[in-house]
């Protein structure tokens, strides 16, 4: 099938970017979206042009590398999929497809569709872990976890850190990302101990890094490739407010 692609091209973080229009005649509905981009890049190379840079690795929806806005949808049309899982069957012959990088000040563009998501790394470093040393641990069965809580924790832990939540949010908020980690640990006895402080540290870091605040619109949840629920944001709010009051009470944490 024939496609018109409007793709954001930007040579480096400092350069001005702009949309370029490309025609691709040999696309097929059997391709995935990234295979279509591969085909287009092959064409660009054959024409002595610089191929479009985009991130991808596992190509099975779990590593979280691929990230782009396709026709105004994070990861393109379709529910609970990543870009690499997007099938070209979602498009028709003659379609025009617009491809943009994630847009938020906290994710500066590196090149074309590649953005710098290291802000997520900094949030994780602010407390996205359980403070436990290697080998300083009890037997795995020493703390039983209710089955439904383990499942809810897993649901949050599914986050792949792709950034679609931030991309979709009108405020560029990273609440769903932060909530997924805070909620996962708050649900487990081994993580609960420092749960309140974790929520405080991670959220403060999120604010500091220039992400917006949550407006509870639910766009993040709709666009999350793993379908992570807003219920986790409620839990983050709960933990954070608890942290605020604990600090008010003067309890040292």
């Amino acid at each position: 099938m024939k496609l018109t692609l409007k793709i954001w091209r930007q040579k480096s973080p400092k350069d001005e970017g702009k949309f370029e229009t490309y025609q691709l005649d040999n696309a097929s509905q059997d391709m995935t979206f990234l295979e279509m981009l591969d085909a287009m890049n092959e064409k660009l190379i054959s024409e002595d042009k610089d191929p479009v840079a985009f991130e991808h690795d596992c190509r099975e929806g779990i590593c979280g590398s691929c990230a782009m806005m396709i026709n105004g949808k994070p990861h393109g049309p379709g529910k609970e999929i990543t870009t690499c899982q997007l099938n070209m069957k979602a498009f028709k012959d003659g379609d025009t497809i617009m491809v943009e990088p994630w847009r938020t000040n906290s994710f500066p563009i590196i090149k074309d569709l590649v953005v710098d998501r290291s802000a997520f790394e900094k949030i994780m470093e602010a407390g996205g872990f359980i403070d436990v040393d290697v080998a300083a641990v009890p037997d795995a069965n020493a703390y039983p976890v209710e089955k439904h809580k383990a499942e809810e924790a897993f649901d949050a832990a599914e986050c792949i850190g792709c950034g679609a939540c931030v991309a979709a949010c009108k405020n560029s908020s990273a609440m769903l990302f932060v909530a997924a980690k805070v909620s996962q640990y708050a649900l487990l006895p081994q993580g609960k101990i420092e749960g309140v402080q974790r929520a405080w540290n991670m959220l403060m870091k999120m604010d500091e890094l220039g992400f917006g605040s949550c407006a509870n619109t639910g766009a993040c949840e709709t666009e999350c490739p793993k379908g992570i629920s807003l219920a986790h944001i409620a839990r983050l709010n709960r933990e954070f407010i608890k942290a605020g009051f604990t600090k008010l009470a003067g309890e040292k944490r």
Partner: protein
Amino acid sequence: MTVLDSKIPEGPLADKWTNHKNSLKLVSPANKKKMEIIMVGTGVAGAAAAASLGQMGYKVKVFCYQDSPRRAHSVAAQGGINASKNYRNDNDSDYRLFYDMLKGGDFRAREANVYRAAEVSNSIIDQLTAQGVPFAREYGGTLATRSFGGVQVSRTFYASGQTGQQVLLGSYTALKRQIAKGNVTMYSRRQMLDIVVKDGQTQGIVCRNLVTGEMERYAAHAVVLATGGYGTIYFLSTLAVNASGAAAYTAYKRGAFFANPSFIQIHPSCIPQLNEYQSKLTLMSESLRNDGRVWVPKEKGDKRKPGDIPVEERDYYLERRYPAFGNLVPRDIASRAAKERCDAGYGVGETGYAVYLDFADAIKAQGKKTIKAKYGNLFDLYQKITGENPYQQPMKIYPAGHYTMGGIWVDYNLMTTVPGLFAIGEANFSDHGANRLGASSLMQGSGDGYFILPYTIGGYLADKIKSKPLSTDDPEFEKVENEAKNKIERLMNIKGNTSPLAFHKKLGKIMWDHAGMARNEEGLKKGLKEVTDLEEEFYKDLKLTGDTSSMNQPLEKALRVAASFEISRLMLRDALNRKESCGAHFREEYQTEDGEAMRNDDQYMYVAAWQYKGDGKEPVLHKEELKFEFVTPTKRSYK
């Protein structure tokens, strides 16, 4: 006489590791602060090791080519992680786990290493649980387990079908904690191009900053490679498309021996190739074979819908051939059996290269809800890719390249033949012999990372406390960096007509055809020639655009493909040398009458370690004889 010293400690099997640990030298806390370690790769093994070493007080630098350590391909492991906890009271033990692995590997691994992997398995589960990995639970709150191939106990811990993701995030968060504490420094978006070796020991690495294109030099007392395998040698595989084994290959060129390169696992249950455009094959976890039954029609070319084929006209070939293990035979056997049926014309699907994995009986017996709870996300994944609903019709699966048992040769301390250069996880060759059992890669990676390397590396570093790392201004660094630069310049300046991706596809086809699930002398020789020809063409006709001073993904790819050619040749050579069938390495000339692998213990009970002798020169084979003191290698039977 061999130059290889595996350094396996003396003593009874179960005491070897303990005794060895006790004899290892220690580095004092004050000295640890001065000792620098470079970790390349951030999968389960690399992240775990970096976290462990950081916690111990070493100064650690970690490198990965992705933007975040969390994207390493360990993330894609699905089914689970083994441990001999015996939580099910099914008479499991370290010994049984050890024996299953050793037998699963067709007695081509070291007894002592495998036993140690089994021995530390329980601590891994404790560790991961404490780190907040949300393993599946029973209603009583204790950990759940399931069964895996090649095993008669239930010892696989899991988190739905995303165990790899959760285990990786466990070590990733441990790594983040050490980064936050300042013990570990993270360098992401770096492609390691070479290792610096001077005065007979490892001094550091040279890598390319993938954002700026700049060359960077890093020095350390020791370098650890946790760079994974080279399964993408087949182009289509279950691996991340950017994984390549190129880093491990640079170690080989700097003097580290490469062991058993031909041992590469073909996973039996992947979604078959659907069309010519495909860039990647998706794994369907082995755990599915707990409840799914594998079959093909009894009649050749039966084109009826699976539901229309009555049970008596179906050939449940795994249950027929291997009644003791049935659908849960090890991967190499399941893969070969599928290939055998398809080659014989019984395959299903449009291409005839697929078999059914049917859940109808399991859904009938346990209910859809239970099956959904166990495999829901895998079923969804399957449906997303194929558009077919596996609750209603059987999955179609076919084998695909998956995991490399072969890798850099390491001794019992996980050190390569280059002093100060270590290899852990999939990058080394040590624990899986000729075939890896399911759910043991996360186990080996975590074990190496959390509990083995952090001790053994101390033994090496204890002798280095007085020395500082080599200055990065040293001429040796200069030389290595220039070599890397020249290599890049060479690739950039070919200015031919073919993209690196196109070369990779061609190489993949050669390797799959000649060194895939079944190999023979003629094919391997042909393969060797074809790879050499293609490589020649590569250096004449490669086309790269863009520049070297910014992000250039085709250049990254070209560097990987260049290494893949050389690994391919090593792999073919090793497969030619090993005139026996064992585990995943199946030479058609060496099989029993009923098509089972025929091992030759008299001549090939050894690890084939290859030494690099220069470009265009034949590598030299070194043999590390495998001695079995504690078990007697038997014919591997799952009947």
